[in-house]
């Protein structure tokens, strides 16, 4: 029998259930070199750009209105011990803090979030708005001699989150080193799949920065102490594969796994299934199989943070779509309002109704162009608005079940969500849905299934919150009732004791008149001595 290790070394490819093959549309933007996007404008930096928004994070803003900041300076503090999940944000430019205000953020709800408005310095004239990729000076650091804790802390303070689009804080994934286990060798899987149509930023980054990415991978492998590094890349990126192969020739630890193109092979769980053949349950994390998955853009950010002391203030963003005159990848600083991108790249606003953030399958449709870009924005699609497909009734064809990568029953879930029956939905593992949109893509009736699942998830969460709140209220009410009864009883028993004492005293007095006289005498004496003392 082949051990898992052998499977790794033989570069076996496993399959996952379902998946779709949408039109790729990657050629629009992947043939041009990436350039720096610059605008001497203002930036709106969201103070929380990681995916951990469900907790109320205590965010400490360390700049004040009117303060001068330099490019890469921390705007919020990540050092206090209480906010373990928090990742700081940094200034995208040299400039002045104009304001700290609430403004609609990148959350799907469009709700206002705290943002820091920074006006860029205008004193140095810029000859052209678009420059080539940043030239850098390497700091004198030998990361091989540094401890893992130091490196993780540095990664956190540089503001690095998962740049594949999920924006989960990277330091939390790296905190615990992988175990030494013979069955599951500690593996760093590098996600270079980029399976969604239109997006080419990872492809471009590998082509241009392969060497840096490999070094970033070596740094992360040093942190989590792993045996193997596997680059997994889809076969639709031959140039990227070639440039990777050129660099890793002399690294025995690193191998490349070329996987067939299929959506959503870039999902973390699907990726692990492709590499190991093992399916993670909804309660399992990659850590349970001794695996750490990192995106190439994250590794590049790690490389920059460790070797160049550069904080994460910009990322490669694919600007594509048929309305863009020059579609390609741009280094866009976080906090650039989308309206400025539209203006600077001469995108015709006339035909533009909706911008898609992310890919067309999982992305978020935005109508408010004033919102700023953030760490999760890896692609902006400016397409002419297409005619909305007519939504028809479900014909129970079962296509959605065939393509679901996690073997759910989207059709069943849809019916239950429509009739708002949450219990059976939970039994059908609603919370395991990764919202990849494959079911939406194949649905012949154009039913927005994922929207229904998101709605159900949000309602289930609301119900659970309500239940726990009512449980707390019940406890508090019962405790109060108990306390009131106890106080009442104590009062009663005290009262009873007093009346009993009185009765007893009066009985004693009637039985013993001498004692009564003595008591009166004693009281009189007490009064006399007191009045004497006073005079």
């Amino acid at each position: 029998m082949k051990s898992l290790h052998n499977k790794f070394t033989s570069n076996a490819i496993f399959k996952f259930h379902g998946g779709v093959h949408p039109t790729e549309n990657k050629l629009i933007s992947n043939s041009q070199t990436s350039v720096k996007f610059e605008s001497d404008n203002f930036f709106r930096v969201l103070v929380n750009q990681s995916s951990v928004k469900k907790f109320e994070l205590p965010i400490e803003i360390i700049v004040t209105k009117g303060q001068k900041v330099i490019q890469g300076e921390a705007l919020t503090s990540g050092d206090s011990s209480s906010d373990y999940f928090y990742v700081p944000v940094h200034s995208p430019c040299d400039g002045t803090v104009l304001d700290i205000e609430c403004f609609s953020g990148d959350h799907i709800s469009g709700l206002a979030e705290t943002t820091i408005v920074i006006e860029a310095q205008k004193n140095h004239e810029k000859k052209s708005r678009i420059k080539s990729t940043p030239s850098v000076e390497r700091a004198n650091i030998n990361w091989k001699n540094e401890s893992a804790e130091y490196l993780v802390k540095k990664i956190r303070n540089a503001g690095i989150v998962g740049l594949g689009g999920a924006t989960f804080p990277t330091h939390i994934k790296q905190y615990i080193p992988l175990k030494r286990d013979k069955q599951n060798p500690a593996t760093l899987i590098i996600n270079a799949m980029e399976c969604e149509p239109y997006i080419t930023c990872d492809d471009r980054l590998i082509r241009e920065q392969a060497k840096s990415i490999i070094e970033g991978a070596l740094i992360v492998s040093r942190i989590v102490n792993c045996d193997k590094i596997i680059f997994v890349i889809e076969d639709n990126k031959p140039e990227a594969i070639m440039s990777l192969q050129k660099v890793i020739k002399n690294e025995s630890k690193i191998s490349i796994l070329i996987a067939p193109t299929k959506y959503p092979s870039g999902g973390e769980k699907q990726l692990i299934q492709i590499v190991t053949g093992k399916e993670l349950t909804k309660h399992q994390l990659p850590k349970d199989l001794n695996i750490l998955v990192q995106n190439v853009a994250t590794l590049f950010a790690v490389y920059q943070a460790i070797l160049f002391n550069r904080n994460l203030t910009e990322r490669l963003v694919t600007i594509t779509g048929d309305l863009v005159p020059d579609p390609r990848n741009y280094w866009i600083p976080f906090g650039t309002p989308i309206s400025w991108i539209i203006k600077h790249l001469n995108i015709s606003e006339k035909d533009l109704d909706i911008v898609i953030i992310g890919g067309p399958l999982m992305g978020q449709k935005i109508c408010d162009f004033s919102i700023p870009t953030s760490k999760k924005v890896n692609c902006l699609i400016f397409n002419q608005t297409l005619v909305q497909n007519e939504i028809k009734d479900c014909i129970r064809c079962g296509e959605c079940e065939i393509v679901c990568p996690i073997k759910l029953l989207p059709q069943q879930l849809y019916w239950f969500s429509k009739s708002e029956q949450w219990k059976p939905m939970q039994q059908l593992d609603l919370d395991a849905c990764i919202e990849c949109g494959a079911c939406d893509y194949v649905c012949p009736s154009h039913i927005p299934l994922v929207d229904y699942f998101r709605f159900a998830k949000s309602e289930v969460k609301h119900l659970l919150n309500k239940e726990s709140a009512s449980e707390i209220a019940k406890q508090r009410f019962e405790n109060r009732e108990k306390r009131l009864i106890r106080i009442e009883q104590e009062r009663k028993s005290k009262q009873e004791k007093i009346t009993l004492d009185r009765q007893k005293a009066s009985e004693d007095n009637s039985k013993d008149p001498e004692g009564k006289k003595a008591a009166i005498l004693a009281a009189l004496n007490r009064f006399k001595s007191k009045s004497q003392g006073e005079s």
Partner: protein
Amino acid sequence: MFGLIPEISPWLIEIFQAILILTIFAGLCGALLGYAAVYFKVEGNPLVEQINSLLPQTQCGQCGHPGCKPYAEAIVNGEAINRCPPGGEAGIKSLANLLELEVIPLNDECGAESLPRVAFIIEEECIGCTKCIQACPVDAIVGTAKQMHTVIASECTGCDLCVAPCPVDCIEMLFVETNLLNWRQEKPNFQSIILN
């Protein structure tokens, strides 16, 4: 000697055997049931607990009972299930489901279903009379005599009971603001674009 005992016919022995076995068996069962009745006794009515767990626990008394549990007890004794405005339509549905009753609309006499609210004390106006503290069913108000009071917003059920006792009318009921933690996704509504 054996001659003294009258001869018993074998079928009679069989009958005695059967009676004996059944008596022993019945005795054992009786002992078991007796034991269970003592040691596995259910305290209170389990249905009350079930109903109580479906009620919203605001303890507001809008149903005419002093708290959710008394209302649950009243429902068991035949009270209507449509007297809980905080539970609303969803609450009536789940109660009807549990008790296998018809779903009926909310009783107007008890009040109308409203969005979640919390009490807010205007602290400058508070005179520290402690009347609201005594009225709060879930101990969500802190303060002491002649000192300013305040509401622990996370524990407040929005029951309204503290508003009436306040002599200076310094308690307001505010709607809970939508934030990233309590935001709810809307149900997809594509009726408008479906063509007939």
